[in-house]
């Protein structure tokens, strides 16, 4: 793994110089290193690779013309997580609780895959730079993926993000409020609304 930074830098430089041979060489080394780390159950190597691959995915989206930009590295990062991590690492768990903005962002992305950062900012009622900082944390923790289409970025949960959300144990600050009686609420109307209805936002149900 000592050569990992060197190969990552070589890959970036090759991308920028449009050096096809250099790109293939670095890709081969990195993919092979990932496979070796999985086979050897080398947790330290897996973590080092995952951190680097997430970074490379963003770079590849901009420069790589030899295949699907960035997808190789995101997929590989997901495989590394699923194959080699026995328990969710601490950083994702710290970011997941819905009481935190990062947790709320994850929930929004799960509810509507492909949201843009601007749409997220509106939903969370936060300014763009605040959302952008949180997205950086979530991406570097491997919980989300950014996919660029044209001028827009679209956000998706990674396999790790989904798993972290599903496996999240409720903490004290995150518990549902205690059961409250609503004596005047009409059960028939509540029944029509359904269990846990979504916020009836005018944009969400609009056609055309």
């Amino acid at each position, binding site marked *: 793994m000592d050569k990992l930074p060197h190969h990552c830098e070589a890959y970036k430089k090759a991308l920028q110089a449009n050096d096809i041979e250099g790109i293939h060489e670095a890709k081969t080394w990195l993919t092979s290193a990932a496979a070796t780390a999985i086979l050897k159950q080398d947790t330290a190597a897996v973590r080092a690779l995952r951190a680097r691959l997430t970074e490379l995915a963003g770079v590849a989206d901009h420069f790589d013309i030899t295949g699907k930009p960035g997808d190789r590295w995101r997929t590989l990062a997901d495989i590394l997580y699923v194959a080699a991590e026995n328990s969710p690492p601490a950083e994702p768990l710290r970011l997941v609780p*819905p009481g935190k903005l990062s947790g709320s962002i994850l929930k929004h992305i799960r509810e509507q895959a492909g949201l843009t950062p601007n749409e997220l900012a509106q939903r969370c009622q936060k300014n763009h730079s605040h959302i952008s900082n949180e997205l950086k944390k979530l991406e570097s923790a491997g919980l989300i993926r950014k996919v660029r289409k044209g001028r827009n970025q679209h956000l998706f949960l990674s396999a790790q993000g989904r798993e972290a959300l599903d496996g999240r144990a409720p903490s004290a600050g995150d518990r549902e409020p205690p059961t*409250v009686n609503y004596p005047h609420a*009409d059960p028939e109307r509540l029944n029509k*609304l359904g269990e846990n209805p979504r916020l009836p936002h005018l944009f969400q*149900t*609009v056609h*055309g």
Partner: protein
Amino acid sequence: MAEYGKPGTAAARFVAFHSCQGGVGRTLALANCARVLAASGQRVVLMDFDLEAPGLQHFSVFAPKGTPKQAHPGFAEYLAACVGNEPPDSLKDYLYECKGCPEDQGRVWLMPAGNHGEPHYRECLDGCTWNEFYTRRDGYRILENLRGHLIAEYRPDYVFMDTHAGFSELSGIATHQLADIAVLVFSLGEPNLRGTLRVFHSLRQTPLRPRIVLAASPVPAVPMDKGSPFYEKMQWIRREFQDAAKPSIIPYHPVLAFDGRIVVDERDDPFSCGLAYRKLVDMIREAADAQGGA
């Protein structure tokens, strides 16, 4: 003056007034319709859902009866009290009875947006995420409970909700969840019509399916005969807003644009708008009757 049934006996109808853009006379239409009903003997509760720009308490007829207060707790304080707690036993702290007119046969109460002179009102707005409130803090149950509580405590014939212009979350809640009838107020400009059409389609997909009443406002004095631009707009509306009744037409008058007067309270209807508001009330009432029979 037309009679609108025995007060407090029929089912309460929740009516949300919504407009996609501001300045079309939505609040003025609501105020005039409420006054028509109150004068003729109905019990009417007004709710100011326009937390950003509340306006109903500024009409003198909707000022508190008796000792005037500068500000009164309302919707924002009610929600704050309910989150994580049992709902209040009584709503009297959050609504007041309005002054009205001496000859009124009915009564009007107002739940103002809130005590917006207080710093905590601003904090409540800034710190409030409607999605969080609605989906994780029992928000939809809190609002359903408020709906039922208003009916039990005030026995209203009508509850009128004034929403914020545009596609805000609270406007969505008022029109899509709480309303039996949604009055969509729009001017005849293209963006306004397109936006209203989006709301119209959106309302058609909600589980509680409110009745929809259309109101074009304010409509300037223009030729309305066949082939005129006005006629063409009306044809477009009838084509696109399928199954909706023909819109109510509320005329434009510069004095009303300058000074929001409640013309239905004036004896001689000096601006010829009173009749239009009365027709709008008739349409709301017809929608209420149709909804009751549905």
